[in-house]
């Protein structure tokens, strides 16, 4: 038998009783949202009240499952900090006990939606490296209980107390309403327009297919144009609303040891990201956003961030940062960086990389033109215009590329239309890959892919020998944390 001392039994804590009410809505929604198509066909399928009532009864049953799920969740979930680790157990039929080492927590998030706020509760989300879901999820704790838990986890991680950290807190970025509106307007909209158009056509066809076709063919050019403008306006409206709701009063601060992000109109999120866990920053500058002098900056740890898009990321995704501040904010997240990609000169890709990408682009454009000719006859030759256009696009892309490797970071910039600048902490490198396709081999080029947990950064194409030497330089030596 082991002689190791056994930690005294720590009592289990449960969620706040009001969690039953707070979780009810989300759980019912989660249960019925998979059946949206049923509602759609019941409403637009022309089946009359019988279908609607049938679907209503069915959905009430499914919603009942959501209610049972909320009750079971409250009744079975227990948590405690025991023997230096966070333990969470839950489940009625399938019981699960999860143990989380506080040192492995990548980032912590406190979320308060409208219901949480009404009952004075908070949802605690703790993320560790890997995995597709949040590993530590406590859906409704009182603010005091959440404070005690976070304080205990901080203490176990050897962090300073909240009071001490608060004193060193200083603002980094704040995003106002005009900037959020601009963010929404410069987000992707064409896809939304297409989706709206598709839904509208589908709904019309379901109502009265023949009449819909007749009416659509009778519309004049002006009406069609107005409809397109309306669809775009609606799309922009949705995009702006999402931006405002998600990032309302966005604020990023830093203390001595962590970044803190707070945002959200209805659901307010407070994320805490230990600086030592930051793996990379990714500045996204789509051409429209760049033209108005802004970019979006994501700060990623090994948590879920790299698997979500910029609107969902639980870590610090700063929607709008003035371009002149992107370098400064990146260096706040990775203090050892010592380089500002928007000020300091970057190394260009190899000159032959342009020739190689021109060959590739020409091949692709010619293939497309060939298919067009086969599909629509001689008029398909118009697609040959793509050849010079693709050359121009490749030239712009080549000019936008740059890279630097310093003692502490790897910096890579790619893309003209959607310029992305990655700043990656070298002490987080997991593996390095050097790839070379047949065209690259012909031109003596190589491409380095540097992987950190959950994502990878590709450097622009450089000379193969230089890439091989860099590969040797980039692998971390023993003793590197």
């Amino acid at each position: 038998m082991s002689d190791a001392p056994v930690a005294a039994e720590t009592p289990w804590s449960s969620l706040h009783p009001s969690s039953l009410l707070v979780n009810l809505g989300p759980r019912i929604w989660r249960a019925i949202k998979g059946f949206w198509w049923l509602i759609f066909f019941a409403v637009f399928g022309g089946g009359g009240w019988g279908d609607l009532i049938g679907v209503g009864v069915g959905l009430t049953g499914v919603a009942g499952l959501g209610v049972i799920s909320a009750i079971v969740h409250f009744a079975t979930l227990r948590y405690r900090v025991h023997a230096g680790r966070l333990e969470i157990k839950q489940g009625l039929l399938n019981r699960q006990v999860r143990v989380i080492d506080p040192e492995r927590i990548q980032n912590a998030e406190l979320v308060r939606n409208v219901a949480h706020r009404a009952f004075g509760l908070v949802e605690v989300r703790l993320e560790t490296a890997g995995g597709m879901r949040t590993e530590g999820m406590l859906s409704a704790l009182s603010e005091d209980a959440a404070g005690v838990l976070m304080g205990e986890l901080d203490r176990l991680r050897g962090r300073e107390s909240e009071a001490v950290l608060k004193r060193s807190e200083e603002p980094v970025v704040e995003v106002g309403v005009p900037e959020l509106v601009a963010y929404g307007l410069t987000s992707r909209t064409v896809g939304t327009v297409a989706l709206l158009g598709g839904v509208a056509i589908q709904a019309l066809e379901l109502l009265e297919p023949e009449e819909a076709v007749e009416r659509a063919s009778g519309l004049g050019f002006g009406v069609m144009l107005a409809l397109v403008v309306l669809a775009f306006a609606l799309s922009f409206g949705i995009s702006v609303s999402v931006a405002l709701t998600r990032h309302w009063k966005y604020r990023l601060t830093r203390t001595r040891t962590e970044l803190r992000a707070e945002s959200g109109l209805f659901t307010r999120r407070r994320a805490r990201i230990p600086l030592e866990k930051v793996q990379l920053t990714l500045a996204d500058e789509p051409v429209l956003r760049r033209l108005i002098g802004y970019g979006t900056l994501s700060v990623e740890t090994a948590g879920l961030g790299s698997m979500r898009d910029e609107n969902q990321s639980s870590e610090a995704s700063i929607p709008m940062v003035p371009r002149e501040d992107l370098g400064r904010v990146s260096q706040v997240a990775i203090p050892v960086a010592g380089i500002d990609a928007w000020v300091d000169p970057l190394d260009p890709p190899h000159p032959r990389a342009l020739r190689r990408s021109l060959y590739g682009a020409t091949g692709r454009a010619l293939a497309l033109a060939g298919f067009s000719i086969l599909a629509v006859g001689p008029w398909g030759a118009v697609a040959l215009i793509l050849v010079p256009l693709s050359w121009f696009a490749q030239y712009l892309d080549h000019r936008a590329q740059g890279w630097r490797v310093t003692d502490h970071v790897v910096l890579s910039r790619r893309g003209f239309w959607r310029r992305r600048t990655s700043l990656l902490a070298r002490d987080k490198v997991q593996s390095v890959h050097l790839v070379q396709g047949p065209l690259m081999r012909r031109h003596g080029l190589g491409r380095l892919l540097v992987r950190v947990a959950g994502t990878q950064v590709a450097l622009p194409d450089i000379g193969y020998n230089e890439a091989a030497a860099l590969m040797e330089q980039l692998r971390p030596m023993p003793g590197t944390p």
Partner: protein
Amino acid sequence: MELTQVSPDAVTLWRLAGVLRSGFTTVMLVVPAGVALKVATELSAWVAVGIVLAAAALLVIQAIAWPGLTWRYLGYGVRDHDLLLQRGVLFRRRTSVPLNRIQHVDTHQGPLERFFGLSSLLVYTASTMSADAVIPGLDEQTAESLRDELARRGGDDGV
């Protein structure tokens, strides 16, 4: 650094696997495609059969010729601080996995590999869900000793 090549028996294994795969592809895809071509274009039956046979022959030739090249360009080496792996015939990839980043190491054997006494080694870091480096065609003893050595030398995950 001189890289070590995997077992020469791997070539035979890959050829056999390739021929079996080609047979399966021929039955499931090439033959139905030939029939569809015949029906859609009114080709003579002999031409359609010829096309199917030519496609099947190409698949088999590829299955027999390619493994030799794969073997030739596949190599690995364990250095002081990292595992170095090189592979790829047309698209070549050289991978460096720092030993102190290795999370876990697996050996994997399918039925055909077991028959030939071969094994694949899969090396995982914290970077992805899938393996960062895969070395196929190792003989069992080499795979096991390599697995144990790499697992022993793994360290901090750097996240």
